[in-house]
């Protein structure tokens, strides 16, 4: 028996069998763990998204599920998906899931605009993988706050924001960019412009 085992360990088949077995064992463990955590991860993501949608409209986030059902309805039309917020039967605005390519990967965000598409209500960054400390700062509140209530339209046309240095005073259609992260700042501004253009056209907004 011992003899036979030593012989098998010297054959060409041994490394293949060994690798196969060890792969099955480890991948099996990972698959089980993934399945076990999947539900938790998904629930967390959904709640995060819902609470961000509420945040863009400045609606209370204390009871995410209840408030989301109360104020927000999901609209799915042809190739458009967006959220609509209503409070006391007044339409507050629309919230669009938008995305664009950042420096390293896709930046996903939620953009809420007024029903007439003339102003941004707020923006929230859902996911990004920009350089921490540089492009990653697009999630910082000072950067996002610049877009709050920002006018989008002039002469019945959607305007593209221009970027100016971080500490300068912004006016009109200007936005302070992040020092050392021009690409990430530009990505955010560009994706806002492209998506507002797209949604306003598709939803036939009168500008």
């Amino acid at each position, binding site marked *: 028996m011992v003899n036979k085992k030593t012989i098998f*360990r010297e054959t060409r088949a*041994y*490394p293949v069998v*060994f*690798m196969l077995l*060890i*792969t099955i064992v*480890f*991948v099996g*463990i*990972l698959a089980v*763990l*993934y399945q076990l*955590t999947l539900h*938790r*991860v998904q629930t*967390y993501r959904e709640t*995060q998204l819902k609470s961000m949608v509420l945040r863009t409209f400045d609606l209370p986030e204390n009871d995410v599920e209840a408030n989301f059902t109360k104020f927000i309805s999901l609209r799915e039309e042809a190739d458009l998906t967006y959220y609509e917020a209503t409070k006391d039967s007044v339409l507050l605005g629309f919230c669009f899931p938008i995305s664009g390519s950042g420096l*390293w990967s896709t930046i996903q965000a939620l953009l809420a605009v007024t029903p007439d598409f003339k102003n941004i209500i707020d923006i929230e960054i859902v*996911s990004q*993988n920009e350089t*921490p*400390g*540089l492009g990653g700062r697009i999630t910082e509140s000072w950067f996002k706050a610049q877009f709050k209530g920002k006018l989008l339209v002039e002469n019945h046309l959607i305007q593209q924001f221009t970027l100016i240095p971080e500490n300068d005073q912004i006016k009109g259609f200007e936005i302070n960019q992040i*020092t*050392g992260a021009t690409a990430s700042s530009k990505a955010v501004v560009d994706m806002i412009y492209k998506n507002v253009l797209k949604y306003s056209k598709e939803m036939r907004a009168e500008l």
Partner: protein
Amino acid sequence: MTKKQIFMTSAFTENSIWRQILGICSALAVTNLMLNSLVMGLGVIFTLALAGFTISLLRNYIPKRIRMMVQTLIIASYVIIVDLVLKAYFPQISTALGPYVGLIITNCIIMGRAEAFAGKNPPLAAMIDGIGAGVGYTFVLLVISFVRELFGFGTLFGIPILGDWWTKWSIMVMAPSAFFMLAMLIWIVNTKSAKRG
């Protein structure tokens, strides 16, 4: 070697970063914030300890010719476990670290310890060696990120230290400063150890 000697050797005397110049890619990447460095360090310690233990357990069965494949598989599995646990139970930290957790797989220190130590020593010793190497790595990361975060942001672990009068050094946040800091650290350590003989 006693267990304490194993630990001290792999953590300081033969420190992976300043003696072996391993694992410097991540040391350059995550050291602009102390919190990121700490979590990265903990992830590496965990992976080093368990990967070392497992590889050492299997050391007499792993065919020599495919040992690197096996090591990578084991290392990757532990890193994915870290990633899954962070995602499910510490989602905020997971978001903050982004892709860096996955990159622990490519950290040369782990492969280095597997090759140099775990493949030839008993499991417990391999585990201690792994923890030692991880602690040494984390120590260096924290030293570098201390300087970079302090000068770059005026904060430590996100807590404001220097106040508004401080002009932030943008270069400290960017990659070049990590090269300078790391080089200076290696220089200082090598000069000291040369003097000691």
